[in-house]
């Protein structure tokens, strides 16, 4: 499908100049539009440096054919998505919109993320002004992507980044990962005084992250691979998003 390919627009060329030669990160923003979900203004502003793919979706129980829902609610859903898209356009950024009716939210979000090659997925939560970013590192994460994303979003702002290594006692060297992330952020031009690095031992990272979420305005974390626990209790990032008071941006692992 040709319309999935990101065509270079005036915007992306402009932002290329802003960011030397780097492509701006692409953030998928899924919004359950017909349930009245929306994106707060502060979040829109914070996300402005990224390319936004706004996915308006509506989840149906399996007894309802998606065709039936689209017949009746397609226009309403499209209008609602365009309304949200306008707030992004209001801060001077292009935004790509998509609308989907589905029985399975995760399947749809994952499919669209794949199709548009999204760097990260936003799990919205209410937010006030966004300044302080928490980056919990608790396992393999695409440091390059993470750093690109954080430095692009924070570029020119006064906000801070807290890299928080959560050591669960496994083989993964959290300290090294935090250090690597710090260096990459410095490389990307983020001033050293804006970056803090912390370490902690943690039995259950999800709960610890949720507990600290009140101190920060947004959480940026890696998706983490599938595990037995996540198939039982749901994806860790989703559990964080459910418990946290701040929005969560999930950095996707680069597909090969």
């Amino acid at each position, binding site marked *: 499908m040709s319309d999935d390919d990101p065509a270079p627009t005036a915007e992306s060329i402009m932002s290329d100049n802003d960011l030397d030669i780097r492509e701006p990160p692409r953030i998928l923003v899924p919004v359950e539009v*017909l349930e009245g979900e929306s994106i707060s203004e502060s979040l829109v502003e914070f996300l402005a440096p990224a390319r936004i793919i706004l996915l308006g979706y*509506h989840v149906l*129980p399996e*007894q309802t054919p998606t065709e039936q*829902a*689209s017949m009746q609610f397609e226009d309403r859903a499209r209008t609602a998505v365009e309304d949200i898209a306008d707030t992004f356009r209001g801060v001077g950024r292009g935004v790509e919109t998509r*609308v*989907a009716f589905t*029985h399975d939210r995760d399947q*749809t979000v994952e499919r669209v993320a794949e199709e548009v090659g999204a760097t990260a997925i936003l799990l919205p939560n209410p937010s006030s002004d966004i300044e302080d970013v928490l980056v919990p590192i608790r396992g393999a994460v695409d440091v390059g992507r993470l750093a690109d994303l954080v430095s692009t979003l924070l570029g020119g702002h006064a906000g801070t980044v807290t890299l928080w290594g959560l050591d669960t006692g496994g083989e993964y060297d959290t300290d090294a990962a935090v250090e690597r992330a710090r260096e990459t952020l410095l490389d990307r031009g983020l001033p050293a005084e804006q970056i803090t690095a912390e370490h902690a031992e943690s039995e259950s990272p999800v709960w610890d992250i949720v507990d600290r979420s009140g101190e920060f305005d947004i959480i940026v974390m890696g998706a983490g691979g599938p595990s037995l626990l996540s198939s039982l209790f749901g994806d860790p990032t989703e559990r964080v998003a459910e418990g946290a008071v701040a929005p969560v941006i999930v950095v996707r692992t680069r597909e090969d």
Partner: protein
Amino acid sequence: MGTTPEPGTGATNRAGEAPEQVGLSTEAEGETTVTEEGTELERSIGLVGGIAIGVGTMIGAGIFVFPGLAAGRAGPAAAGSFAIGAVIALLVALPASELATAMPKSGGGYYFISRALGALPGAVVGISIWLGLVFATAFYLVGFGNYAAALLAEAGVNLGGVPIVIPMALVFGVLLTALNLFGTENAAKLQNYVVGLLLTILVLFLSYGGLDALGVFGTQSTPETFFRFGPFPMFTTAALVFTSYLGFAQVATVAGDIKDPGRNLPLAMVGSVLIVAVLYVATIFVATSAFGSARLETFGETAIVEVARNFVGGTGALAILLAGLLATVSSANASILSTSRAVFAVSKDAIIPKAAARMNLKYGTPHVALAMAGGPVLVLVALGEVEVLAEVASFLHLVMYGLMCVALISMRRDEPEWYDPDFRVPAHRLVAGIGAIASFGLILFMQTTSQVIGLAIMLAAAGWYKYYAADVELKGVL
């Protein structure tokens, strides 16, 4: 004529509504359908889900009602009758699969027939299959009531002679409809669990019984002459038991929601027929080995319960009664779901008022269509005349199956440009021809009452079309 002309459609119904085109046919691949405006419709039912719908719809009657009746008519050759039934079902399932991969839209048989043969046959099939499914659901619910009563009696609950079959059926009918109306948690998931549990019980029962019949435990049973009544009754009995294969086409009613329909639709339809065929044949084999066909006949509709009791005593009887209960639940639930899809499909095409396709945003369920399924079902259950109605349901299904075969032949004769199925039936004229003859032929074996009621319903459907939607044209419109 039409005030709101849409691409490719000629005209409107009495209320000025035109058929609505939702998904673009060219985009109906993989995991999404894309509408004209670019909205994506996610396909989320996989192969297992599709098979669960097919098996869940079919298994209700065949295993629990027919073994005694069929063995009485054909002797141990009743196993052959079920095998013949399966072959006929496959001869219809193959053409249905090809049509479904070419037109993977919700609506199933109705959709194919209206597009291949035109709006009038389409309307007749669409409306009569709605009623056919309503009758079938009522039949399953009464079956549920019977099993529930037998289960209570088996468990030693004394009801003091109060008749509970119909009240149980009514209560459960209300529950299932309510579950589908308000259940935001997926009702279709329930289907998978019920079918899974049911299959587990049956496979355990059949493996034990099969080993027993072969003489692994204790004495080997004396093999009975296979053709106790000669080969001819095997064929006439096949006509009787074909009813137990009605339902594989229900997979096609959810075609719009099936992932990778080109692959999964044919596999789910053919696969579910094969699974139930193996179960049916094994059941008859085990049952006739345990008791001999003459004695089996005297047990009538609860023959299988007696077989289980013979193997493992009261526990076996309880387990099989529970399986019967689950089978009727899954069949009734699958039928209610299919009914609401059938209503949606005809309403989308303006054959009946568009209001029938309305859905409720709060619960996200098609409340009008579900009410049009559940409401009449409850009335029928309360009336209690379900045996005849079950046969009427078979009649209406068979008409649809026959016409699907005709639709395939007609489609292939002058293939429209858009006709590009992922799966093509080999020797289609022969397969679809035999499928059509067998489907229509089976109707002749039915009771006159059922035939009269079935014909009356079809005439009424045709009359409705002439009155309400005579200008609507659907042939070749995707």
